[in-house]
C-alpha cells in the first residue's frame, strides 16, 4: 500500500488512452507523454500499457508501507527517496517505510511514476476500457479526480527479488526551446500564405492557460483567409487549431472530440512526447515535414523503446502473399503481420495484453 502525504500540484492515474468512445463525445484521455509513460513501465518490467501516476510540476510525497521497485521518467522533477536524490529514467528499490518525494521542476512538466506489479485494480476504476482519469468528467482512475493528501493505493504484489535493475541511457532531453515537427493540414488552405510561413518562422510562447486539454500559445497571430469558423469536425492529438484570435492551440489528450476552428497543421507522433513536457514560458518553434519523415521519426522512436522491451522470439516466418506474412512464435502460436513499407509489424498478444512490434525483412 502507498499513501499520499502530499498530493503535489496535479497527480492523476493515466494509461495509454480511452480509445473507442470519441463518437460518444468522450475524450481520448491517457498519458500526455506516452513515450515516457511506456518507458516507466518497461523499466520496472510492467506491461507498457499499465496505468501509472502522471505527476505535473511539483510532485507528491508518498509513503511506502511495503518494499517496492519504482521508476520515474519524463520531466526531471527532482525525485528523492528518503531525502536522497534518485536517478530519473532508471529503476530503483524502495524499502518498507520509504518516502518518495520531489524537489520541484528542473526540466519538463510531467513525470511518470511506475511501480513494479502496477496499481491494484481494487484502487482504481476501469471506465470505458481505460484506467485514465478524466477530471472534467469525474470518471476513471482514482475516483475520477486528481489525488489528495491521505489517499491510498494498493500495489499488486510481485516478486521483487526476480527483478534486475534497468536504466535507460538514451532517454530524451527536454529543452525550454522545443522544436515541433508538423504536417500541414487538414485546413491549411483556409489560412493566408503569409501565415503558413509565419508559423514556420516564428517563436511562440507557451501560455499559463495550458493544461491536459491543450497548449495555448502566444506570439504572432495567424490570419484566416475568411471566417475563423468551420463546420465542426474531428480532432487528433497534436492538431493545431486557430480560433479567431489567430493564436494557435495545440490539442492534447483531454481535448474535445470535435472542434469548430480551422486546423492549420498537426504535430507528428514522434514529437507528442515533447508536447507533454512544455512548461508555461517555454518557446515553441514549428518545422513543416512530410509524412514520410514523420513515419521515419516514429520508427526511430519505436526502436529506442525496443531496447527496453522483451520482444518475443520468432521461430519461423511464413510468407502468405506479397503484403502479408504470418509469424509463428516458440509456443507454435501464429500471428498475422501487415506490411508497412519494407518493415513488417504485428500485434502480439501476451496473456491479456497486446503489444506491437516490428521486424525487418532483408530481401
Amino acid at each position, binding site marked *: 500500500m502507498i499513501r499520499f502525504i502530499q498530493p503535489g500540484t496535479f497527480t492523476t492515474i493515466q494509461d495509454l488512452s480511452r480509445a473507442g468512445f470519441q463518437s*460518444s463525445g468522450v475524450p481520448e484521455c491517457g498519458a500526455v507523454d506516452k513515450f515516457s509513460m511506456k518507458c516507466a513501465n518497461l523499466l520496472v518490467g510492467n506491461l507498457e500499457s499499465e496505468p501509472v501516476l502522471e505527476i505535473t510540476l511539483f510532485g507528491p510525497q508518498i509513503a511506502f508501507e511495503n518494499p517496492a521497485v519504482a521508476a520515474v521518467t519524463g520531466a526531471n522533477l527532482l525525485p528523492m527517496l528518503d531525502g536522497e536524490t534518485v536517478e530519473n529514467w532508471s529503476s530503483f528499490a524502495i524499502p518498507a517505510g520509504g518516502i518518495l518525494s520531489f524537489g520541484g521542476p528542473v526540466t519538463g512538466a510531467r513525470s511518470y511514476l511506475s511501480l513494479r506489479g502496477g496499481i491494484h485494480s481494487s484502487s482504481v476504476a476501469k471506465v470505458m476500457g481505460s484506467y485514465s482519469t478524466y477530471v472534467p468528467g469525474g470518471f476513471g482512475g482514482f475516483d475520477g479526480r486528481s489525488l489528495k493528501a491521505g489517499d491510498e493505493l494498493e500495489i499488486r504484489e510481485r516478486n521483487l527479488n526476480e527483478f534486475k535493475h534497468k536504466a535507460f541511457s538514451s532517454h530524451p532531453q527536454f529543452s525550454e526551446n522545443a522544436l515541433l515537427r508538423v504536417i500541414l493540414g487538414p485546413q491549411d488552405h483556409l489560412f493566408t500564405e503569409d501565415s503558413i510561413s509565419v508559423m514556420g518562422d516564428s517563436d511562440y510562447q507557451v501560455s499559463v492557460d495550458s493544461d491536459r486539454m491543450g497548449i495555448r500559445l502566444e506570439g504572432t497571430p495567424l490570419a484566416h483567409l475568411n471566417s475563423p469558423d468551420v463546420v465542426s469536425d474531428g*480532432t*487528433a492529438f497534436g492538431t493545431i487549431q486557430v480560433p479567431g484570435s489567430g493564436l494557435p492551440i495545440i490539442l492534447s489528450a483531454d481535448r*474535445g472530440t*470535435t472542434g469548430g476552428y480551422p486546423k492549420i497543421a498537426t504535430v507528428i507522433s514522434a514529437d507528442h512526447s515533447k508536447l507533454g513536457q512544455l512548461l508555461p514560458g517555454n518557446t515553441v518553434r514549428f518545422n513543416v515535414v512530410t*509524412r514520410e519523415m514523420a513515419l521515419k521519426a516514429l520508427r526511430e522512436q519505436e526502436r529506442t523503446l525496443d531496447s527496453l522491451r522483451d520482444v518475443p522470439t520468432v521461430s519461423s516466418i511464413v510468407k502468405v502473399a506479397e503484403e502479408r506474412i504470418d509469424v509463428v512464435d516458440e509456443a507454435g502460436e501464429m500471428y*498475422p503481420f501487415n506490411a*508497412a*513499407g519494407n518493415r513488417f509489424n504485428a500485434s502480439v498478444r501476451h496473456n491479456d495484453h497486446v503489444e506491437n512490434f516490428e521486424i525487418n525483412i532483408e530481401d
Partner: protein
Amino acid sequence: MTILPESTDQSDSYPQITDIGDSALMVLLGEGVSPLTNSVVHTMVREIQELGWPGIREVVPVYSSFVVHYDPLILSPSALTTLIQNIHGSVSSENTAADRRVILPTIYGGDFGPDLHSVGELTGCSVEEIVNIHSGTDYLVYALGFSPGFPYLGDLDQRLHCPRLDSPRVEVPAGSVAIAETQTGVYPVPSPGGWRLIGRTPVSLFDPLQDAPALLKPGDRLRFMPIESEDDYREIENKCNTGEYEAEVIYL
C-alpha cells in the same frame, strides 16, 4: 493520352481525404450541414468499423466528415485512402431513415430555463409559442461531441433563432436544454456554456458506467416532451436517480 472525366459535378470532388498528422485522416463528404451527407457519413463509418482492419484505431463521425485514427506502423495511409474511396463508391447516397426516436421529458422555463424570457424578447414569441415550436418537431442527432454525450441536433425552427449569451455561464447544470443561433442541444454533464437555457430534462444523457455510456446515438431522432409541473419533474428525477426510469425509445 489522358481522358478527362466528362463531368465536373460537385459530387465528384468528394470524398476529400486529408492528413491530420501522421496517424489520422480527415474524410470530408460535402460542404455545410445536410441530413443526407450526414447519413452517408454514418453509413461509411459503420462499414469501416465492421471491417475491423488491424491498424484502424477509431473512427469518429461528425456533421459532414469523419476522422479515421490509425497506427502508421501497421497501416499505410495510401492503403487506408483506397479503402475509404472504395467504400464511398459502394455506399448508396440515399438517406437511411432513422430507426429510433428518443423522447426526452423536459420542463420549460422557471429556474430550469432561466433564459426563456430573454428568448421571448429576442424572438417576439410568447412562452407558450416557444414551448410548442421547440417540442413540436423531431430533431436529427447529427453527431455526439464537444463534451461526453452532447448531441449536435438539427434543425431549430427559424422562429427561435437568437444569438448566444454575451458572456458564457461558468457552469450550466446537467440536463439543461438550450438554444443558440440555428441550433438546439442538451448539456449531459455540467460544463461552461454560452447557449440560452430554456428548460431541463431529468433524464441522464450520459452515464460513464454503462456499456453504452451515451443515451443517444448519431442518426437518432430526438423529441422534447413538455413536463407540466415541477412535481412531475421531481417524480421523474427521483425515478432516474433510483434507476427505475427508462428513457422512452420508439423504434421506427
